[in-house]
């Protein structure tokens, strides 16, 4: 299996993400909200790293900062030593909601990034068709996204993100909207693709099996404000195969992460109940409240 030219990246040298002491705070109507607090992570060139945590822990927010969609409140994010300043085609992004342009055919979607780079129409077409061929989507090149299934849409989304030969792929729960069967297939497609391309991937998910199966390293985040609770190296060999999910190493790793996240989820839910629900309840049925009503 040879690499095709548009996909070739000088791997192992570029695509180094470094996030240092990152803090993200939102000003909301109800005061300030710390989404992410003092997070430091890194992705080595050619490494597959997952970020996992309970829902609302700020993991997507973190990815949005690396993508350049969001400015951090404090700390810094570097790509190959340069500060990240806005989005750019050196970082391909795959979104949970597919985010294909509905008014463009599959091929035009894939060509979009190349068009922005100023390639001629014929060059764009050749490259897009090659990529779609590799992804097994060539017969759908003239379909519109709304004609495709969820799994196919997301494959187009991945191909589109790869078309500009980025050094880094940022994936924000890319398989979260798919049914579990399609999801497993997509995970395997992704790991095979990564095996060939060896580009750096930052992968956001709340699916523990998915994170362990795909990653070299996994960061587990705390509930809000999101901090790094733990960092683990996945001991499974490469290339990954579906059989590995039955191995004791896989099971042990999943179990460890599951208990870490359970702690966080329970803490988060306890906090919600303590702050809001229970407190509200007790004041309402307090003696003063009763007498006032009567």
């Amino acid at each position, binding site marked *: 299996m040879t690499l095709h030219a548009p996909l070739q990246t000088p791997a192992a040298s570029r695509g180094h993400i470094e996030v240092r002491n990152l803090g993200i705070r939102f000003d909301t109507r109800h005061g300030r909200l710390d989404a992410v607090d003092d997070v430091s992570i890194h992705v080595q060139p050619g490494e597959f790293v997952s970020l996992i945590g309970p829902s609302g822990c700020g993991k997507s927010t973190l990815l949005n900062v690396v993508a350049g969609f969001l400015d951090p409140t404090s700390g810094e994010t570097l790509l190959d030593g340069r500060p990240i300043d806005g989005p750019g085609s050196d970082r391909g992004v795959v979104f949970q909601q597919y985010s294909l342009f509905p*008014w463009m055919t599959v091929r035009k979607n894939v060509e979009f990034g190349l068009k922005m780079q100023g390639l001629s129409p014929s060059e764009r077409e050749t490259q897009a068709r090659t990529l779609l061929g590799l992804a097994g989507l060539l017969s759908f090149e003239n379909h519109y996204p709304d004609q495709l299934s969820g799994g196919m849409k997301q494959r187009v989304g991945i191909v589109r993100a790869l078309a500009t030969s980025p050094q880094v792929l940022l994936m924000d729960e890319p398989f979260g909207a798919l049914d579990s069967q399609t999801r497993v*297939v997509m995970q395997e*497609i992704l790991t095979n693709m990564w095996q060939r391309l060896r580009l750096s991937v930052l992968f956001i998910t709340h699916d*523990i099996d998915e994170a362990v199966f795909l990653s070299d390293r996994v960061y587990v985040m705390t509930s809000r404000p999101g901090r790094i609770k733990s960092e683990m190296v996945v001991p499974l060999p490469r290339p990954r195969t579906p059989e590995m999910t039955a191995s004791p190493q896989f099971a042990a790793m999943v179990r460890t992460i599951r208990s870490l996240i359970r702690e966080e*989820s329970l803490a988060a839910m306890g906090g919600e109940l303590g702050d809001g629900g229970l407190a509200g309840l007790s004041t309402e049925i307090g003696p003063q409240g009763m007498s006032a009503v009567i």
Partner: protein
Amino acid sequence: MKTAQLMKRDFDGDSADSPARTEASVTLLPVGATLAPRAEPQPKPAPTHGGALLAWTRRQAGDWAMAAVSIGLVLLAWYLATRFKLDFYIRFNNIPTPADVLDKVVEANRSAKFITNIGISVRRILLGFAIASVLGMGLGVLIGRYRRVRQLCMPALEVFRPIPAIAWVPMSIMLWPSNEVSIVFITFIGAFFPILLNTVHGVEAIDPVLLRAARSLGAKERSLLAHVVLPGALPHIFTGLAVGMGVAWVSLIAAEMISGQFGIGYFTWEAYSLISYAEIALGMITIGVLGLLCSGAIRMVARMTMPWLAFSAGGKKS
């Protein structure tokens, strides 16, 4: 609710769930699967060409038959009411019969006056509507996209918006150097606001994820406007164009009746002054047909400009 579901998925499946799932995934996936095509269901396999064409023809024929019945019933009611000079609160004594009007149609089509009137009205509509489209879409995109432009323009526009185009007639006659320009202006006013407001709404309704996706693919602001914002807003823009065309006709006819020389609205009003009853009906029917043709043209352009809507979830209007 969402938390509960996540909890269940993430933490429950330890014993019974995951072995089954693992097994399933092993049998499902041949080792070494690559980017190669999967046996995913082909979306919407089209029926054979002949069958599809036949079904389509049958559906079309049904539509046409019902349309003929619909219009036929109106003509029949009109004929009966005028034939028997129905006088029951509404009076059909002076109303021409369909046959009278048909005679008029034949006669009018031979006269240069009638054709000229139609031509003049169509020219006014096209001119006013074209200016309204360009300004409405252009300004609408800017207002929808940039907060500062919105803050600057919207208050003033909101003041003018409730003023019906017809209320502009006296002012318009004073403002513009010729009668002709003032009528085009009134037509423009009628079309402008629906186009503007729908464009603004369309731009604001674009999924922000699409904008992010485009920017992560290297799109700068200008490309974003041309390739994402504008096509993304197109469905709403066409709604605005269709509504705007309707209002433009209303405004044009009113303006022609009040201040006009020439035009199909003027023709109709003149017929009333001259007590030419058949021409009143002819004028009305002509206005109806012209309006129908215009909105049909917009629908056709919309279908050609936005072929993807045929496949979107809410786009299959029959």
